[in-house]
């Protein structure tokens, strides 16, 4: 397996997550000053082609190294700095003249190109935490998705250009996103996080408590168990259960102290706490209405802890106290 295969394999979960038809395409510009990189180990494109066409073909596995004579599109030649402009005013973002472009391999690429549809772009944007789409409909895959991303180091989406649609073989729903290689590991991490949130070990998520609520209770020392929280208040083992209303809203908070009756004298309990016997256990519990008690389940952890402590200290007297 070549090194490029290893990189491709590594990032394959991203492609699988997005449901991409095309493989990820790496593009690497070899500057004239680089005399050591041997491009002869790559295939030639097989005639003059558009850069965007070569990118799409690389998405089906055809990796090539293209030099100036392989390009059929003057805009790409200029955008990728294979040739410097003499008679037109096209800004050249790549300063050094490019000797060749290696199109396909991920390992060592200067930019990773995603050939995707709008829905996939939406999911990629979520993984990236936002995605700019700076495009003019001209100099697209070569300029907006390749040169610009290499120079600016930020991802960019292009809606392609007429050349790509007419000669590059792209369909009406295709777009291309260029991503700097250093961002790939972060994207992969996000994908793996999403894939691992199956919930319980059986693969079934048995509660939909929002992560902020879980984090909020964690911040006051309460750990989430299956669908409830467990922690300690005033030295007592306390459980917190969030009661849902009919529509599934987080409506009430029940704090519950399970006491094994035969362990000691029965505690004295005052309202709002009540008791319920379960065989050899006594549950001491109080249920608070989240809205009327002014509880913020998402971020008000300290207040919740303070209320629970005040209530437990004031209204429950354990044997011997």
């Amino acid at each position, binding site marked *: 397996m070549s090194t490029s295969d290893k990189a491709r394999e590594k990032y394959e979960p991203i492609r699988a997550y997005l449901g991409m038809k095309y493989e990820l395409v790496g593009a690497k510009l070899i500057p004239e000053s680089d005399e050591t990189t041997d491009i002869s180990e790559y295939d030639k494109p097989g005639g003059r082609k558009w850069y965007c066409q070569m990118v799409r073909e690389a998405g089906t596995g055809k990796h090539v190294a293209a030099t100036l004579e392989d390009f059929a599109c003057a805009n790409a030649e200029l955008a990728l700095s294979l040739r410097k402009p003499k008679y037109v005013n096209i800004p050249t973002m790549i300063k050094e003249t490019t000797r060749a472009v290696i199109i396909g391999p991920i390992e060592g690429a200067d930019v990773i190109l995603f050939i995707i549809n709008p829905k996939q772009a939406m999911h990629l944007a979520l993984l990236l935490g936002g995605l700019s789409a700076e495009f003019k409909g001209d100099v697209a895959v070569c300029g907006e998705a390749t040169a610009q991303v290499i120079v600016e180091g930020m991802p960019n989406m292009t809606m392609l250009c007429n050349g790509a649609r007419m000669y590059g073989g792209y369909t009406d729903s295709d777009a291309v996103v260029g991503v700097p290689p250093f961002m790939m590991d972060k994207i992969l991490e996000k994908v793996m996080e999403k894939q691992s949130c199956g919930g319980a070990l059986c693969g079934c998520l048995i509660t939909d408590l929002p992560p902020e609520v879980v984090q909020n209770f964690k911040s006051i020392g309460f750990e989430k*168990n299956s669908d409830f929280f467990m922690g300690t208040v005033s030295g007592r*083992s306390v*459980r917190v259960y969030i009661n849902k209303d009919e529509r599934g809203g987080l409506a009430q908070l029940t704090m519950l102290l399970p006491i*094994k009756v035969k362990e000691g004298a029965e505690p004295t309990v005052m309202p709002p706490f009540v008791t319920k016997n379960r*065989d*050899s256990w006594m549950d001491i519990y109080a249920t608070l209405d989240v809205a009327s008690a002014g509880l913020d389940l998402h971020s008000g952890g300290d207040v919740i802890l303070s209320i629970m402590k005040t209530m437990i200290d004031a209204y429950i007297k354990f044997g011997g106290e």
Partner: protein
Amino acid sequence: MRGGIVPPEIKEDLYGEWGDIGYNVCYDCLEGRSSLCGKPPVKKHLEKIAAFFGGDAAEHTFGCRGAKYAVMSAIRSLHLENDNFCDYVIVDPNCHYSTIIAAEMNELKTVEFPHSGYPEYTFGAEGYAEKIEQIKKETGKLPALAVVTHADPYYGNIPPIREISTTCKNYGVPVLLNAAYTGGVMPINIKELNVDFISLSAHKSMMSLGPIGYVVTTHEWADRVFRTSQAMPGWSGRTFGKKIPNIFGCSIGGMPLISSMMSLPFVEKRIVNWEDELKKINDFVDQIEDIGDMMLLGQRPHRHHLLHFETPRLWTVSNEKRDKGFYPAKFLINNGVVGLHKGMSKHIKFSVYGLTDEEREKVLNAFYDMAEVSRKQEN
């Protein structure tokens, strides 16, 4: 799953007589469907299964999920043919995921009602009544099915079946009892419980190799659930009149079916002792809770052998160990006790059903030893 342990007495014959051929059930089949087979006597076996659960007809299926699929498929046809029923199925909030998937596969919508929450997670007939009323109000029709899970997979709770089925039947809503965790462990009778279908899992609760389950029903529903194929592709003139589409034509054969057939006499024998087993299970619960900071979740006294404990101290101790959440299972394995779900430490599920007194004692001691190690660590 302790209820699926294969009786040692049958192992020699099972592998010796039937272990060489993949198509072992089909070798002498003259009918074109395994459930009609006379040699081995699958047809007779299914009659026994139906009778054992008080039903009129039974078919073997690809696990309990296959049984639920068959019922849901029949229910879909009911909804499509009968204007009184909509495409809603009421499920209890503790139901197994495959109940919901079986409905989903048949394009039926599932709705659930709340359980009582921590720490008992119980429910009764009122949840079903409220949902039926709500669906009637919204659609002008009845839900096509109500599903009750008899011993749920999370807490091992047994709901008040008779009360639930009577409520649903009074509305005219058919009832499926999912007895994957109970059928073959405790006595169940479809008519006494007033339900229309029972889905069963032989590898969970009937001492069999898997995957195999059963769907048991009454004459009232048998034609619809076990309706044979009507398909006629055309050109060749082929038809498949003995195949039952709802169980994929001819259901699972091979070692699972043979194993379940050989185990049935042992199943029939053991359920007689269910109340004794239950007492031993509840005694075990009391003893293990004496360790401290372990509490059974679900009904008390418990009515099933699946035990789910919350174990906050075990979690704290496990966090300090290299194996983290895998520590409890590893500790028990090293002490000769296998079966605890690996990776769980905040709460654990297991069963001591069918163990001898000595074996239960061994399990208990292993937990005590683990607690002792924990105490030393905390000090």
